[in-house]
């Protein structure tokens, strides 16, 4: 399986797209496939402060409930409201319309501790 080259990946199967001091985060297609049909997501609040690798929300599928772990730290500036009524976007388009939140980065260098697409493919292979 291959993953988008412009993203970085965490061991907990979240992705992050860094653009300057901002980043968009979500869960990977691997995570979505492992969870199965996702029926609910508990989103963080706008303004919440995320710490890298700390839990910031919950996803619930028909077969499991999992915590979401922030791949990178920062303050939440926007959450994907479309997921509240359409959590299936996490399955159908995890790297696109299924994004979870946008954050203002606390420390952009944190991205260095994440995997690139090749390393993540090896990790999940």
């Amino acid at each position, binding site marked *: 399986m291959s993953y988008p080259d412009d993203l970085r990946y965490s061991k907990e199967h979240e992705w992050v797209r860094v653009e300057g001091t901002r980043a968009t985060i979500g869960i990977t297609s691997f995570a979505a496939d492992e969870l199965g049909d996702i029926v609910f997501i508990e989103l963080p*609040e706008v303004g919440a402060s995320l710490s890298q690798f700390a839990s910031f929300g919950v996803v*619930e599928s028909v077969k499991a*409930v999992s*915590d979401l772990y922030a791949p990178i730290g920062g303050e939440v500036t926007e959450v994907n409201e479309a997921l509240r009524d359409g959590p299936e976007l996490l399955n159908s388009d995890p790297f696109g319309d299924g994004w979870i939140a946008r954050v203002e980065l606390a420390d952009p260098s944190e991205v260095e501790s994440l995997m690139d697409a090749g390393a993540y493919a090896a990790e999940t292979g």
Partner: protein
Amino acid sequence: MTYSPHTDSDRARMLEEIGVSSVEELFADIPAAVRAGAWDIPPPLAEQEVRAELVRLAGRNRIPDVSFLGAGAYRHLVPAVVSEVIGRPEFSTSYTPYQPEVSQGTLQSIYEFQSLICELTGMEVATASHYDGATATAEAALMACRLTRRHRVAVSAGVSPDYRRVLETYCSGPGVEVITVPIDLADGGSGTTDPATVAALLADDVACLVAAQPNFYGQVEPMRELADAAHGAGALFVAVVEPTSLAILEAPGEYGADLVAAEGQPLGIPVSFGGPYVGLMAARMASVRQMPGRLVGATRDVQGRRGYVLTLQAREQHIRREKAASNICTNQALMALAAAAYLTAVGPQGLREVAELGTTQARHLAAALEASGVAERRFSGPYFAEVAVRVPDAARRHATLAERGIVAGHLPGREEPALADTLLLATTELTTDADIERLVSALEETR
């Protein structure tokens, strides 16, 4: 025969394994003051001797001729059909459904109960029940903390003292601070929570205001204004209600309650020393994922037939472990069934009559006490079926009346010093005019 789970050599091997020389050394850290010491147990008795002893002990029970005791537990007529339904072995012998979908009858009974509680409270979703009213109240307060992500709760002093103690206990673990909102305890005062006090006390870090309707002293609280005051501070409003009162008082769903907790005992469960009782909880659908305990939902199977499931179990501890909405998912299914059978048997009109007869008798009682000059109402303003009255030397006369087979209600001075010389008297449809006359006469004679 001595019950001996382990032999001396078993014990010796266990002590050796953990490196302790004797049982005495094992328990050395336990202070002598809390040790059991030598047990002075009499020799065994034959079965008939045990029976005789139990009969003798039972003979010491005092069954009052007349009781005005309420204070959270109320004596009501329980139609015979209630015990008939809950006595059916399909219900009375079944434990919690671990493979729930094969227990469609049990699930349906819980679903019917939840539906009745929603109808009664005017709320959108109700749980399968909790231990009792106090634990349901505490669970509701913690649920408000999860919903608001705040860590303080405000509780009106009009909520039962017992419930407030349970609330303190539940809040002590997760580090939630409980602040008490005073009520007007002045002689002739309202006996209720002042919305202006609430507005002044509630900082923007308070998760909820908990208030009772009617309150512990029977007084009718300004629930709509209290809900508005709570919402004004961004807090949720938790209404603790007496369920039969909802037949004549406004439903919590109407006055803006976000959460409702209640003791379900008045709905077909006899007053009993230590229970079992049943806790009710209801909420808005938007907050359903933070509800504690079990929920039964209705659905359709692959052939389109109606069926019932335990739903939204991701809230529960067997899936969410330490992040569960509550670590108490036990419900009181049999008592919930009793409540459902009771509500179904009496119907909306019957429940209304229960509430009206109780309030009517409370007014007869207050009028008779005031007319004879032995007591007068402690508070002013509207009250439900329980009335606080000022009686000089209340504790002594309460004890004297008990000797005569009359329980003159509850002594609220035990928990609230400002209410010494007060009796809290409850009436229901079972309170007769003769009961009232007897209480008034006995109070006159002990003047």
